[in-house]
């Protein structure tokens, strides 16, 4: 299925950033700001959904900022489900009261994914820069789980929380929550590299990779490194379209100027991004060794090294550790 979609540049999986607004201020957040200049309305997002249906999207991830801060979030979620998408909601959960939880429970979302930044309030709240955010998060999780909503917890691993690695695992197990551990802190979408100062230690990365056991990339010459410009796309709160969630180098255009269904296949920026994915794939094959077998993000390489074909230090570290773990 994926190969057919890659060949046809069918955007199977998309991220919709409903708003930059957020009630947390996570120190390493990828978002460049926490306000919208002229965010898309509910009607505009529903037009985007119609165009995604036309283009062949199956998976829609609703994210932000904090998507629950969009005044029409429930309407947008409902519209996404009415259009038969697989829908995931990325949220900090703390704006989900009982009424919102009831609505979410009625929609058959694939999952609600929440980020947890520590096993105790002092560690978690330090990261979010919001006192009380840890307790509010746990209450939100309980509220959703009580309504049989599938909740997945994610731990972005940082220098500030890695000492609670085992405690977070225990907390998730105690609540029977699936837990994903992400050892990769990325730059801000505007290229600001300051979040990287919070990157976890190599020891913590090693533990995380040992647990996650990441896929071994099986590359062939002429293949795609990733879905960039082919099976992924992202729309930001102001309607700018990107060929994947991470690639902010150049937008394809804006949905307020050209409908997404017209923009996607006609865009030279999309075609250039898709071509880059192939060049990156072949380049990594030529480099060989661990670099050829670990998942690579050319968007992050572009942000950190200035060249999508030049692997960033974080990738080299993780690829090396993963290769050592495989023996």
């Amino acid at each position, binding site marked *: *299925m994926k190969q057919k*979609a890659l060949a046809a540049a*069918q955007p*199977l999986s998309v991220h919709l950033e409903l708003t930059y607004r957020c009630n947390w201020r996570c120190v390493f957040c990828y978002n460049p700001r926490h306000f919208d200049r002229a965010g898309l309305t509910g009607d505009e997002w529903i037009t985007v959904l119609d165009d995604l249906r036309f283009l*062949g999207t*199956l998976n829609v991830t609703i994210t932000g900022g904090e998507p629950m801060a969009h005044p029409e979030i429930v309407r947008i979620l409902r519209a996404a489900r009415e259009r038969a998408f697989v829908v995931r909601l990325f949220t900090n959960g703390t704006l989900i009261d009982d009424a919102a939880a009831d609505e979410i429970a009625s929609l058959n979302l694939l999952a609600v994914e929440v980020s947890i930044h520590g096993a105790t309030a002092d560690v978690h709240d330090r990261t979010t820069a919001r006192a009380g955010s840890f307790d509010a998060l746990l209450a939100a999780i309980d509220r959703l789980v009580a309504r049989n909503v599938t909740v997945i917890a994610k731990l972005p691993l940082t220098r500030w929380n890695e000492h609670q690695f085992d405690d977070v695992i225990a907390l998730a197990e105690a609540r029977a929550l699936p837990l994903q551990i992400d050892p990769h802190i990325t730059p801000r979408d505007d290229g600001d590299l300051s979040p990287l100062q919070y990157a976890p230690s190599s020891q913590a990365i090693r533990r995380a990779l040992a647990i996650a056991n990441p896929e071994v990339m099986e590359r062939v010459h002429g293949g795609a490194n990733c879905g960039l410009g082919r099976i992924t796309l992202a729309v930001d709160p102001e309607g700018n379209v990107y060929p994947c969630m991470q690639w902010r180098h150049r937008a394809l255009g804006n949905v307020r100027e050209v409908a997404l269904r017209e923009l996607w296949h006609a865009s030279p920026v999309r075609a250039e991004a898709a071509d880059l994915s192939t060049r990156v794939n072949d380049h990594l094959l030529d480099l060989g060794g661990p670099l050829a077998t670990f998942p690579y993000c050319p968007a992050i390489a572009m942000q950190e090294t200035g060249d999508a074909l030049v692997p960033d230090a974080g990738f080299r570290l993780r690829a090396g550790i993963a290769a050592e773990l495989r023996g």
Partner: protein
Amino acid sequence: MRYAPQVAWQIIDGEVMIVDLASGQTMGLNPTATWLWSHLDGHSASELTDEMTSAFDVSRNDAEKDVNEFIQLLREKDLIAES
């Protein structure tokens, strides 16, 4: 008949991929089943049979057999709900 509320689906390379969000199961459909799935929402089995007979070079008997078998399969997997 309606698509069941926990269903998601999309056409990929001309064939429908169904995702049952309750079970996590996925199902790919062949071209005939793809056509039937794409046309069944909001229609009865009889209406679907009529449409299939019009759209394809097939007898009504054969169309009815295909439609009924397909609907039975979907019911067993809880992928459709009655209107």
